[in-house]
């Protein structure tokens, strides 16, 4: 069964909740309208269609758009190495959706990472703690409104962090952003 046929079967099962499969570079993506049903869709994909391997869960911050968050699930069927991507949106006010740990145990750390980096919570997760940042860190660093240089924060009883000077660091080339003179204090002439 190809990825497209699998996607059509999921659509037949869940009806209007699932968008028409989209194809880009040979990869099939379906969009789930209601994030609350993600665990059901994933469970059905695993049980009925044999998607036994969760490759990855990613998160997107559509900053300035509504809904703000997009969750991206990469499913794989090991038997024929067929892959399927399921995307679903979550609003910023809610910032919550059900966990898929009951379907694949590997979701545990992926969901913790998304909570840590983006601040999206997974309902029913048994151990939703930060994973890469330390417990008590106040920000969600992969959000688009978090600056690349970082923000000052405390590491309890150990140390503190400061924004990075970015000297010789990443050469920021975001289109439409500030130009090099605005951005880089070292090239400013004294008059400015």
């Amino acid at each position, binding site marked *: 069964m190809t990825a497209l046929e699998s996607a059509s079967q999921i659509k037949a099962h869940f009806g209007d909740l699932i968008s028409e499969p989209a194809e880009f570079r040979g990869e099939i993506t379906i969009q789930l309208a209601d994030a609350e049903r993600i665990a059901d869709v994933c469970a059905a994909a695993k049980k009925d269609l044999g998607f036994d391997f969760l490759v990855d869960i990613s998160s997107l911050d559509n900053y300035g758009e509504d809904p703000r968050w997009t969750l991206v699930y990469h499913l794989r069927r*090991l038997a024929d*190495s067929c892959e399927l*991507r399921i995307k679903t949106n979550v609003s910023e006010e809610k910032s919550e959706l059900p966990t898929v740990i009951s379907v694949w145990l590997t979701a545990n750390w992926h969901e913790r990472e998304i909570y840590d980096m983006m*601040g999206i*919570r997974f309902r029913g997760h048994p151990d939703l703690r930060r994973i*890469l940042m330390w417990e008590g860190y106040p920000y*969600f660093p992969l959000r688009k409104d978090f600056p690349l240089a970082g923000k000052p924060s405390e590491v*309890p009883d150990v140390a503190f962090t400061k924004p990075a000077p970015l000297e010789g660091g990443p050469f920021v080339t975001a289109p439409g952003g500030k130009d090099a003179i605005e951005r880089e204090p070292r090239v400013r002439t004294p008059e400015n």
Partner: protein
Amino acid sequence: MPEVHDIQFKEPAAQAASAVEELQDMQGEKMVLNMGPSHPATHGVLRIVLELDGEIITKASPDVGYLHRGDEKIAENMTYTQFIPYTDRLDYLAPLANNVAYALAVEKLLGIEKNLPPRCQYIRVMCCELARISSHLLGLGAFGLDLGAVTVFLLTFTEREKIYNLAEALSGARFTTSYTRIGGVSRDTPPGWCAAVRKFLNEVVVNISEMETLLTRNKIWMDRTRDVGVISKADAIDYGLSGPNLRGSGMDYDLRKVQPYLCYRDLQFDVPVGSVGDCYDRYLVRMEEMRQSVRILHQCLDKIPGGFDNQTREPVNVADGKIVLPPKDKVMSGMEELIHQFMLVTQGMNVPPGEIYFGHENPKGELGFYINSRGGGTPYRMKIRSPSFVNLSILSHLLPGHMMSDITAILGSLDFVMGECDR
């Protein structure tokens, strides 16, 4: 923008108090032991909080993130080409393979992966397989060292030194190679390099055999690794393990076979698969993978278009001035090349909007890049699916029930790198 969080973090003092309470509840029968983040057996900065009943582990909670550098955030703020050096620092034991994985992911997004010149594909496969041998050599060397087999460590490091010399001749750097470019490689193989690879292959097989005589039928080695850290096939799949750890558990799954990229389709090799899923099986799988890599490399050297020193001047980059930097002499004389050079350096290549995931069979497992582009020269979001991160997530399930001293065997056999785990 309001910050959304309703999870209350405990004060450190309150945390300590509750930990003491928990300890008293155990009535002295169990103890909590902190292992790492700086411990020789954790191969980097992995911390594991263990709960012990005598010498038996009853609970283990791994704590990662000590090497977190925010690579995904950094990637959003630079052009695709500028991120290549950061990929060296993911799995820093196999930088050449990471370079190839990243370049292939961006090329998939651009839709040019089928246009790669054959010589470039062969060079890249050779890079991947050299990186695989290098990574497995270190993994097995450190694994042996942790279990007391110091000789193996010395043997593997002697061989790794030769691979570093090859990497230096190829890219100019021993460690942080940054060898690939989007649409090709930074330079063709230098004169004599292919012959040096052939010489190395003939030497390394001798040493692999010697390592095997030291370990495979060694009573101490077998006692320490057999039936220790058994991962069932179902668990391996459920926890998303990949690479040698998945194959060690009996799952015949290798991305080079099932989703062939580059020229792997034209190359003959076997995929070793374990039967029990214990540390010994994972060791055997890695040992055999090195032999298969040698086999692949020999075929590459036989088949590489243009021959050893590229007498026929085969291209190593795609012929697209909007993706690959033009030759320097043309930049100084041609208008079109000058414009291409200028645009590529200041804005990066123009990548179409869209999203792709590309999984690469790295030495440690499946290294995947999910790239979400909204057009332009920088990714909107790049997620790195790192095999070490996923492979380590099984620890809290795997360790309980084992002896304290088995941890070194289990960690060594899982063969992870924290630079990649924490990103």
